[in-house]
């Protein structure tokens, strides 16, 4: 069987993006299960010693295309280079981030290769499949598991016949795990100027304003999330107070962001970030399906809500029936008095 490939994105600071490190971690586990190698692709400029960032995640081979026309990302040259690599290497599986970049690039590549692509997977597993119609047995396929229909159904999708089996996965869905800080793989340089043609550069970037992401709720162990029920920006301060004493981060529902209680970077859910903390405290959040899509993998959930029937309570481990203005100060008081 051929190898597993992960397309690695670069941050503004030209480090490997978290989402890609998460996918390398997942890719490593799948590669080990299948007994194949894990290969990474990094395309950009000034990529000196970029391999040092990916090897600890168990990468056996990293393909590096370094050319000053390749950063920032544009679709056509990156697509040409990935296709070039895939034509030579014939991957078994190829994984991309379900990010602005990955969701732009992966479908273009899947279309050129006439391969199946599954969007926004929340889980990737290895499994077999028996096709009744043709009486064919398929071993060790990639099960690509994803929500669809607004999060109301979960589909398991397979690509029995086409290779690579392609999938995108959102940031924060897989766990980032260093395999071995001393792990060493091989670097394969791609001669970009030999592959690229003038047409690949027909779309030009003429202006760019990117923020380095400051707020990072994705990797928080404990999240205090506020909803519309928090009532005001002033009341939201209570959540920050609790977060301060617990060493937590503050998140928000879309209704809270829309009401101006919180910044968009903190939004959790289908159109925000996906989080999976050890503890999620939902304050004045009703628990719409779009919100739950971003937090229902939390290890423990506490809901503070005045409404005993709020849907969020159904997935909560503890429900406190009460107002946040009453409950949160009590939590802070107890914690200050009793923690070391």
């Amino acid at each position, binding site marked *: 069987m051929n190898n597993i490939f992960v397309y690695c994105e670069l941050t503004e600071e030209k480090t490997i993006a978290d989402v890609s490190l998460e996918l390398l971690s997942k890719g490593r586990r799948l590669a080990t299960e299948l007994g194949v190698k894990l290969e990474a692709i990094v395309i950009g400029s000034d990529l000196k010693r970029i391999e040092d960032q990916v090897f600890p995640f168990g990468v056996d081979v990293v393909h590096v295309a370094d050319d000053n026309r390749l950063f920032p990302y544009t*679709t056509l040259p990156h697509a040409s280079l990935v296709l070039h690599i895939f034509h030579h290497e014939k991957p078994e599986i190829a994984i991309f981030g379900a990010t602005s970049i990955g969701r732009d690039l992966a*479908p273009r590549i899947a279309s050129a290769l006439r391969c199946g692509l599954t969007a926004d997977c929340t889980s990737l597993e290895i499994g077999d499949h028996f096709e009744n119609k043709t009486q064919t047995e398929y071993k060790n396929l990639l099960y690509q598991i994803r929500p669809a229909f607004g999060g109301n159904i979960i589909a398991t999708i397979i690509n029995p016949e086409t290779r690579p089996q392609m999938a995108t996965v959102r940031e924060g869905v897989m766990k980032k795990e260093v395999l071995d800080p001393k792990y060493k793989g091989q670097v394969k340089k791609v001669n970009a100027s030999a592959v690229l043609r003038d047409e690949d550069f027909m779309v030009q970037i003429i202006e760019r304003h990117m923020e380095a992401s400051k707020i990072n709720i994705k990797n928080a162990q404990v999240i205090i999330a506020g909803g519309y029920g928090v009532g005001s920006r002033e009341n939201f301060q209570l959540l920050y107070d609790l977060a301060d004493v617990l060493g937590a981060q503050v998140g928000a529902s879309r209704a809270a962001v829309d009401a101006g209680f919180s910044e968009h970077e903190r939004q959790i859910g289908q159109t925000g970030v996906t989080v999976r903390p050890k*503890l999620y405290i939902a304050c004045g959040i009703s628990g719409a399906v779009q919100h739950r899509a971003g937090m229902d993998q939390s290890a423990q959930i506490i809901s503070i809500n005045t409404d005993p029937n709020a849907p969020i309570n159904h997935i909560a481990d*503890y429900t*406190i029936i009460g107002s946040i203005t009453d409950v949160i100060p*009590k939590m802070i008081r107890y914690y200050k008095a009793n923690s070391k």
Partner: protein
Amino acid sequence: MSFRIIVLAKQVPDTRNVGKDAMKADGTVNRAALPAIFNPEDLNALELALRIKDQRKDCEVIILTMGPFRAAEIIREAMYRGADRGYLITDRKFAGSDTLATSYAISLAVRKLEPYHLVISGRQAIDGDTAQVGPQTAEKLSLPQITYAEEITEVSEKHIVVKRRLERGIEVVKSPLPAAVTVHSSAPACRQRVAKLLMKYKHARTVTELQNETKDYTELYDQRPYLQIDEWTVDDLHADVTMLGLSGSPTKVKKIENVVFAHKDSKVLSASDEDINNLMKDLIDSHVIG
């Protein structure tokens, strides 16, 4: 030659407001209870097209949709807001198409409408939720793609300038034409129906719809041929059937599970000091916090 814009639009079940009545007794979604709507970002796409039409007298906006017969509803809806005409791609042989097969069919239809300047689609449909059809259609047509458009700031015969909305900021890009653009929900909302256009197009029908009408439209259609919404089948597109439908789709759905909104074993507490103190103690003792 006119400046031709093809807008791709999909009719979708409204998955956003899955209310209590849309839930079955077993906690799963009753799809039949969901209204069929114009995919929200496709309305943003239509608006960006109509804004170009506002500026250029020679501009023509064509709506293209693939779906069952009733999807003609969104073609009419687009006409009421300013689209000039529309085509419905419809055939049983398209059923079960994944995004690759869908973009293949759409790309054949777009080719029938050559020469065009722009293909504008939504970023993502709210049912399939993949955001793949736009880029895949672009690839099949060998067009440059500009995803996540928020605004088209400049248009000429030869190029466009587009502001893109990305996760961490914005980017302004310039592309030669023809090009494919996918539109983000942060683009301006679509204008409302125009009364004059509603009057003009309310009798617009597809061939199939006309066959089901009791009234005779022959005379009206002779006078106003623009009311005719053409339907395109696999044969009209000269499509390779092995690249369509289930057999032309490399992705196979192995299993579908409905998300059941089950009750988890959950402890209900009051806001009393005692309840909250006990909870905090448990959390500290179990090292969840601390």
